[in-house]
């Protein structure tokens, strides 16, 4: 009995977080067009629906894999786990569950690596971890990444995705908006480039701080981007929002993003922008 239990635990422990959310051999249904596709095929298409172009959400590791040149990524602060400032037991349980389910210690992965040979600092948020809400440690990791990018004089790319500030950490969470903006303004005054890539969904305290502070702001097609979430707006105005409201395309039309870039073109576009900012 004990032996079997041990075996199971071992098997769980060796599951690779990169492939865990869509294991090989499974079929996946597109939430937009309902087309059923083989997950292996979908992964080859960078998780973009072959039929309707829907961009599935990526985990941080998947994003890094398709963005950063193979073998060049060095993670920063990978061992930093979350804090529970008010020792809230409900929150403690939630964190433990999020860590188990995502295989991550916190909702953002930061580090440095190459994009088509250009060295960059990068931060990627992962919605599988409590909808990538920003708590103290998410703010800290992003702040540190910005500071390190400044020290190393590297361009900075942040792939944002978030439901907003993490309410269980109270004002500590809210203040991360100010902290990250402070680090960015210091970074910016050094004449360095920050490309903000908005992915599905970018809302709340993240959109209202570093996500909209980019020199260049790109967005993935169909991504939900805004300050308030659509449900909160619908409850406030007591009517349904029109189709496409707060989509990346809507934001571009209203003048808030520079370009909406389909995922298969994103790495190339980033490389092109980086090349145009080369300082040699």
């Amino acid at each position, binding site marked *: 009995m004990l032996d079997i239990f041990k075996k199971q635990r071992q098997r769980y422990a060796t599951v690779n977080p990169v492939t865990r959310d869509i294991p090989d051999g499974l079929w996946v249904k597109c939430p937009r067009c309902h087309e059923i596709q083989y997950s292996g095929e979908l992964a080859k298409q960078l998780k973009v629906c072959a039929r309707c172009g829907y961009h599935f959400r990526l985990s941080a590791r998947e994003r890094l894999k398709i963005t950063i040149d193979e073998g060049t990524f060095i993670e920063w602060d990978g061992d930093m786990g979350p804090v529970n400032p008010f020792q809230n037991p*409900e929150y*403690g349980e939630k964190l*433990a569950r999020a860590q188990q389910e995502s295989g991550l210690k916190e909702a953002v992965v930061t580090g440095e690596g190459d994009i088509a040979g250009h060295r960059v600092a990068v931060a990627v948020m992962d919605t599988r971890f409590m909808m990538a809400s920003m708590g103290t440690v998410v703010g800290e990791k992003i702040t540190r990444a910005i500071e390190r990018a400044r020290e190393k004089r590297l361009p900075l790319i942040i792939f944002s995705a978030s439901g907003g*500030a993490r309410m269980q950490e*109270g004002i500590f969470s809210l203040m991360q908006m*100010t902290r990250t903006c402070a680090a960015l303004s210091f970074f910016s005054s050094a004449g360095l480039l920050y490309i903000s890539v908005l992915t599905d969904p970018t809302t709340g305290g993240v959109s209202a701080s570093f996500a909209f502070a980019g020199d260049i702001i790109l967005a993935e097609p169909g991504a939900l981007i805004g300050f*308030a979430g659509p449900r909160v707006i619908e409850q406030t105005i007591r009517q349904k929002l029109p189709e496409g409201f707060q989509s990346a395309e809507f934001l571009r039309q*209203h003048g*808030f993003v520079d370009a909406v870039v389909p995922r298969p073109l994103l790495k190339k576009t980033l490389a092109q922008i980086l090349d145009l900012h080369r300082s040699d």
Partner: protein
Amino acid sequence: MVYDFERPIVELEEKIAELQRFAGEKGIDLSKEIENLEKKSRELKEAIFSQLSPWQKVLIARHPGRPNTLDYIKLLCTDFIEFHGDRCFGDDPAIVGGIARFRGRAVTVIGHMKGHDTKENLARNFGMAHPEGYRKALRLMQQAEKFKRPVLAFIDTPGAYPGMGAEERGQAHAISCCITGMLTLRVPVISVILGEGGSGGALALASGDRILMQEYAVFSVISPEAYASILWKDATRCQDAAGIMKITAQELYAYQLIDGIIPEPLGGAHRDKNEAARLVGEAIAHHLEELVGYSVEELLRRRFERFRRIGPEYLPGNDVT
């Protein structure tokens, strides 16, 4: 408007007023009785207000009779001239601003604006700003910087308005710019949370050198009602939420997230707005005196350090992993 927990205070105050009237009409000396009741009233206020629960503080912070930003500007400053508009889209009545003189010094004042009744509140959108409000605030801050005026920012909002127009005009972008704009301003900035400091909409005006809170003000990442409704699917548990969220001035000061608590008159600012304003004025003057003594570089260095330190190492022994 009177909350249940305030009712004994109000009843006693009514009784005192009645006795005074009676004494005046009949020409009898009731001064001893009145004095006794006044003493009792003070003791009652002290007893009730020394034991307010976090939720009761939320209610005081939201009290419609609580002095609002324009009340304070008028009581604290002379020569106030209101300036309107973001020079881009429109004028947001939920945020007011302008220039004035505070204790001899020209200052720029900005702040969220709530009304005292439903009609005023509808006109002010309950102090919930649109992007043009934050852009007006930013414009006035940058004007202050040009003319080397300190900025006094008053915070009193349930949050930024979650509506269609607000999203179309870039609410998130406007708040982000306001935060960064205030952070990098080359003049002293003092933020005072007067009532409700709700979420990002409040934070937009709280990135300066000092964040002060009135004694019964609250500052939160989300309203206790929304916290209870999202986490427990039950908005009626807002009292429990207020308790565990750490949103009162006293709790936030203990965590060193704010720089000072401004005392309020006994029974709350709405019981004596002149005294409330005097206390706010004293606190602002004290901090302003210190800030104007710094060189611009020193001011900015200290401001950035203040926010830099609010990280996890601030909370030792908290790692859950």
